[in-house]
């Protein structure tokens, strides 16, 4: 497979993830109708569309919360068998949630440490006596997590219980937890929703930095068109479970069907 050069001159790599003819039903409701698209290594791929278009459902299919009735998912060039979300996480797919899903009983640091779970391999017995390998592992990942904390500029809230944090910071901690897994593919469900302008700008910068510094491939759902057009390499547009557009931001912006969908349906 070949690499791909975007109009703004960024070279992005081979296909990392491919969804093929996915159909997902809830009883009589078809949330996703025969949708296909690909995600290339190193790119920022946006999914947009009006409320109820099936965007979150698509992420849930990719990370294994939902099992589509039809279609295939290819990851790293191999067809993926039906797997549990925890197994998919271990393959290097991390995510954040539209409605923040942090561990409320923990502080910021522990939440992010939990993100390292897939990398920590010492046995239960070793952990129980906190000895040798287990201890070294704990310190090693603690260091990694501190690095992420610096990166996302949340040093000041390291020990704060996450429930006490303002909304914008909770979203940032959730991103940190996902990053701690050192994912190949990072799925972000509306990472900037409900934020003020300043917080949005920060989050945009972090998403771009993550992509640039760690080379992480990112799939992101976002309603703010300005943000989407600014930071994404390619955009998929969904409407009522169908795909109505796919391409670089300029192509999508001038697509008549996309314009209609956005004018016809009120959204926030």
């Amino acid at each position: 497979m070949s690499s791909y050069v975007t109009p703004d001159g960024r070279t992005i790599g081979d296909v990392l993830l491919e969804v093929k003819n996915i159909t997902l039903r809830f009883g009589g409701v078809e949330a996703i109708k025969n949708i296909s698209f690909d995600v290339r290594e190193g790119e920022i791929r946006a999914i947009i569309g009006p409320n109820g278009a099936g965007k979150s459902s698509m992420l849930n299919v990719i990370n294994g919360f939902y099992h589509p009735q039809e279609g295939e998912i290819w990851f790293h060039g191999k067809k993926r068998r039906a797997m549990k979300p925890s197994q998919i996480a271990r393959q290097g797919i991390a995510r954040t949630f539209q409605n923040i899903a942090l561990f409320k009983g923990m502080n910021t640091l522990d939440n992010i440490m939990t993100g390292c779970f897939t990398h920590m391999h010492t046995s239960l017995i070793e952990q129980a006596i906190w000895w040798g390998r287990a201890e070294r592992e704990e310190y090693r990942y603690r260091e990694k997590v501190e690095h992420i904390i610096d990166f996302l500029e949340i040093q000041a809230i390291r020990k704060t219980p996450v429930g006490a944090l303002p909304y914008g910071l909770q979203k940032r901690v959730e991103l940190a937890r996902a990053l701690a897994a050192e994912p190949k593919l990072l799925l972000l469900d509306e990472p900037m929703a409900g934020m003020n302008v300043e917080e949005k700008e920060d989050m945009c910068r972090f998403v771009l930095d993550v992509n640039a510094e760690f080379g992480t491939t990112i799939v992101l759902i976002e309603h703010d068109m300005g943000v989407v057009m600014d930071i994404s390499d390619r955009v998929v547009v969904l409407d009522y479970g169908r795909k109505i557009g796919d391409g670089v931001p300029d192509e999508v912006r001038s697509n008549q069907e996309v314009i209609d969908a956005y004018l016809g349906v009120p959204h926030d």
Partner: protein
Amino acid sequence: MSPDFLYAVEVLLNGLMAGVMYSLVALGFVLIFKASGVFNYAQGVMALFAALTLVGIMNGQVPFSHLINAVFGTSVHEFGWHVPALGAIALTAVVMVIFAFLVEKLILKYLIGQEPIILFMATIGLAYFMEGFGDLMWGADIKALDVGLPKGGSIWIEENTAWLAAEGSRFFGFFIDKLDVSATLVAVVLVIALTLFSQYTATGRALRAVADDHQAALSVGISLRAIWVITWSIAGFVALVAGIMWGSKSGVQFSLAFIALKALPVLMLGGFTSIPGAIVGGLIIGMGEKLFEFFVGPLIGGATENWFAYVLALIFLVFRPQGLFGERIIERV
């Protein structure tokens, strides 16, 4: 100090140590409830089963001997060896891990996503099954359990507290059972160890993560089923410790399963999701029971220990339904 006051203090201390037992059983409940949303009715029977198994292993009893003898016409009862206490405790812990594994494999796996009431019913079934199974495996007779914990009133404590009251009074020092003291120490060590484990290890964090949010836990790669096996194993181990204490005190017998019912008011007091709540709740009920019996019992004909805990819990249910430390119950609209 007046002898009456000192007697009341002695009652309080003894209540505190009885409360440790309640705390331990309640702790087992809370661990499982937090991790899997299952109200495990079988927690008390698990303590009984663990204690039966421990005695059986220590005495070299042949498991299922009645069944074997009935089917094959043999007459085997004992292997004829004795396993030292520590070894037997380790073996019993292994049995409890196997038990946790089987519960997950044979029951929980099939009930994922079911209503809490259905899971609850399943554990009632489990409780009765285990009661019968323990009976079949080890026999129904009352067994003495001695793992070498010190027993009897502590003369040291008695001699060193006698001075608290004036010379020649009715008070001769606190009477405190050494078994109660060692049980309390063991429980304290257990709770500290569990706390450290859950705070400072990857698996401990995973346990807390699952307790907080299943979806988020899955998304970071935690397998719910593995965590359930671990939680039930820990609950099994806590049950074993509770079983050892209770069994050392009053013999291993089926009434042990009923102390689980005492854990219920403890949980109402402490909150179903709070580990500190389970511990403090157990101590409060233990002390409250004994003090109430001491002061009010004689006035109303005694036997208040049977109902005091439940009445206290009822009062709590009315005024603070989430318990002392439980998360606030907020209706979602």
